[in-house]
């Protein structure tokens, strides 16, 4: 046993590096060729298939599966990429249990959907490993579009614009592309530096350049982009996070979950990532689950997710919740944080209040309880921080308002992904919106 395993406080290296490596293996190992054919055989090639309707990017699922079963995985991948250039990442991170696979007729009939996500991964892996040139940029159109951010929405937008021959310049605040694919998605969903390989794959079409350390709102104004480029796409995601705002929230050991995951994703072997022995995670979404599970996999002894509403209201899917509990995470409902108790500026425990739903409103019951903890991971939502961007754009619910084509209230400016007010905050939704905005931009540029 590792000597640090039961140490109190926030400590790195609770487990040996080899154990950590073992814990962070691929959550859903890829199908081999035989498994893929067996899985593909189960697809009925439905007409107007429900799975296609459920996929935010409307991939022709029966077609790509049929192409796998006829021994044409490259053609299958093309079918996928034509709709979703980040089909490789989506195959890994889509909550298929609430998207395509939820409505698969074989889920309806037998409770066992066709393994659409894994089949999508099989085909896209095949294509990306085969190094075939799938897309070729046509002759340059002479138009130039600025794309802000290098997350999934922006990458999908840039690729589609390049397919029409437009030149794309991506301005990214960070020093690395990929957005949350690179900094947010749980490590066991995208192993082996897949996010960066995928960015390379997207860029291989040509005509897309990325400039790093370029932050809209800091030395770059939207008006400038509007005048320098023929069009602008905003795919800036949600850079801000909600803070706890309570007594003790500045104590050593209170950490924002998104930052915690970003650090973990950038670490080489994760043995330098410090976690508490006892951890309380506040929140009920995908971020809370991912932070809790990964903390557990790093060797935390007790990890408790506290969510202020019930199981049904959790944003994390049932599959995600089950994943967490199967890894030893405890999920508690109807508890909201009251204060973080500290000693010497360090977290000691968290006091929470029981809640209940009264007349459709959530309210504390007044009854308190305390959970011992040396680390608190805060996952109570992300925000756009529109003021920092200095955007002269209409907002809606704190996010950028867009029409169905992704057009914003500002001239020549489109937006997509998490920063907009439409759709779920999912990679696949970001891809769909980025792609569709590119189509709209192209139409406008051609006029």
């Amino acid at each position, binding site marked *: 046993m590792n000597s640090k395993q039961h140490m109190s406080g926030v400590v790195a290296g609770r487990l040996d590096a080899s154990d950590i490596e073992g814990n962070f293996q691929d959550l859903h190992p890829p199908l081999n060729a035989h498994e893929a*054919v067996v899985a593909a*055989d189960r697809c009925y090639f*439905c*007409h107007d298939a*429900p799975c296609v309707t459920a996929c935010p990017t409307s991939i022709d699922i029966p077609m790509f599966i049929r192409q796998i079963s006829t021994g044409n995985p490259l053609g299958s991948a093309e079918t996928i990429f034509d709709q979703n250039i980040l089909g490789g990442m989506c195959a890994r991170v889509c909550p298929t249990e609430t998207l395509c696979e939820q409505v698969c*007729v*074989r889920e309806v009939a037998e409770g066992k959907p066709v393994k659409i996500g894994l089949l999508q991964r099989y085909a896209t892996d095949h294509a990306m490993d085969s190094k075939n040139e799938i897309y070729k940029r046509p002759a340059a159109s002479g138009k130039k579009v600025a794309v802000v951010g290098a997350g999934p929405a922006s990458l999908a937008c840039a690729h589609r614009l390049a397919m029409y021959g437009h030149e794309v310049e991506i301005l990214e605040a960070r020093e690395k592309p990929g957005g949350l694919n690179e900094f947010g998605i749980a490590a066991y969903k995208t192993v082996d530096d897949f996010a960066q390989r995928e960015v390379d794959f997207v860029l291989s079409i040509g005509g897309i350049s990325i400039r790093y350390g370029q932050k809209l709102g800091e030395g770059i104004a939207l008006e400038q982009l509007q005048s320098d480029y023929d069009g602008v796409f905003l795919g800036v995601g949600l850079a801000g996070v909600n803070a706890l705002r309570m007594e003790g929230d500045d104590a050593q050991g209170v950490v924002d979950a998104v930052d915690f995951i970003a650090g973990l994703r950038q670490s080489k072997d994760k043995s330098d990532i410090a976690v508490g022995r006892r951890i309380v995670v506040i929140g009920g979404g995908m971020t809370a689950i991912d932070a809790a599970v990964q903390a557990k996999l790093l060797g935390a002894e007790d990890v408790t997710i506290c969510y202020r509403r019930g199981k049904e209201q959790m944003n994390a899917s049932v599959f995600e919740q089950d994943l967490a509990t199967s890894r030893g995470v405890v999920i508690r409902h109807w508890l909201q944080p009251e204060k973080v108790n500290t000693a010497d500026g360090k977290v000691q425990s968290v006091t929470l209040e029981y809640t209940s739903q009264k007349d459709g409103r959530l309210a504390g019951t007044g009854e308190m309880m305390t959970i011992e903890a040396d680390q608190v991971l805060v996952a109570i939502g992300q925000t756009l921080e529109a003021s920092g961007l200095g955007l002269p754009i209409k907002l809606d619910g704190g996010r950028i308002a867009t029409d169905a084509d992704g057009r914003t209230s500002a001239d020549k400016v489109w937006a997509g992904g998490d920063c907009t007010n439409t759709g779920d905050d999912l990679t696949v939704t970001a891809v769909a919106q980025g792609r569709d905005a590119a189509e709209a931009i192209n139409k406008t540029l051609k006029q």
Partner: protein
Amino acid sequence: MADITNTFAGIKSPNPFWLASAPPTDKAYNVERAFRAGWGGVVWKTLGEEGPPLVNVNGPRYGAIWGADRRLLGLNNIELITDRDLYVNLREIKQVKKDWPDRAMVVSIMVPCEEAAWKAILPLVEETGADGIELNFGCPHGMSERGMGSAVGQVPEYIEMVTRWCKANTRMPVIVKLTPNITDIRFPARAAMAGGADAVSLINTVSSITSVNLDNFSPEPSIDGKGSHGGYCGPAVKPIALNMVAEIARDAETRGLPVSGIGGITTWRDAAEFLALGAGNVQVCTAAMTYGFKIVSEMIEGLENWMDAQGHASLDDVIGRAVPNVTDWQYLNLNYVTKAKINQDMCISCGRCHIACEDTSHQAITQEVDGVRRFEVIDEECVGCNLCVNVCPVENCITMEPLAAGETDRRTGKKVSGDYGNWTEHPNNPSRVAAE
């Protein structure tokens, strides 16, 4: 319990399931395992004339096609008749028959088309104590190039001639195995009967190329880059075999001639269907080669259970029962009107019935009703073809419901007649026979 003991062309066996002449019956080792597993009889792998044994290819012999889950649906082979020494085979046949007296032991033979050759081999076979012989006039590959197998089976005069030689030179019952590689199976069957055959067995394999290797453009199975047509068998050929068996069973000239049914039999159900269409027993090859000998116990029990449930006491209650119901198209009742009906509780909304009907048939299945995805049959358009039934992945989800006499067919607007009426009497038939 139902009695499934069987007498075929005078040959007795404890059940009607024989192994067809093929690799499963090529030597004592296999045949003894088969008998232990419960097979009622075997037709020993085809023997050739005395002399140096035949040689087979030393590369692959089989090609195949598969269904979902790589279930073997059709098998094709380029194997020849036995490649073992004639006397080794005869010794083993004799020993096995001695050890398993209650099982049917039939020996398949193929020698050149000369009376002397048949005269020479028949006493040797008779000496083993075998119950009968089967004349292999069916093998479509290799042997046919040497003037044997289907080269004989495709010429009715040869069939009759060789059958007559055999009848003249042995006391054993003679079964003539027919090739399906002809245009009308009744002609070779009639020829066998004319030659005095005690029975016919069919089908042997269908000439075929199963696939082509798209890397080197060789047909499969590929022998050093080249392929040859082979003989096709397995579940895929069952419908062809069933029809041929029925043709013989209902032909005025061959009616009553015992038929051993072969071709794609894989379950008790397949076997029961052959029996119902007039086969006196059945022979199996591919199913055993796919799953091993054990399947015979499923066949035996399945047949018994079904007979018990239906109240059939013996095989005679079953054999030929479907033959009177096989007729010509012109005699089918055109006043029988059906409509497809979809059981909405069973429907999983895959949409296949809709697209099949919409794209390729009669536009008779909805895709949406009141704005929601829903598949319903439009009686005004449905011609009752049952394509939808066959493409639906859920068994019994779509059924064909006959309209009762007096009901209005919403497609034609006409009332359904309760009377039988066929094409020969139909007003649209230019050569109709006026109904008196």
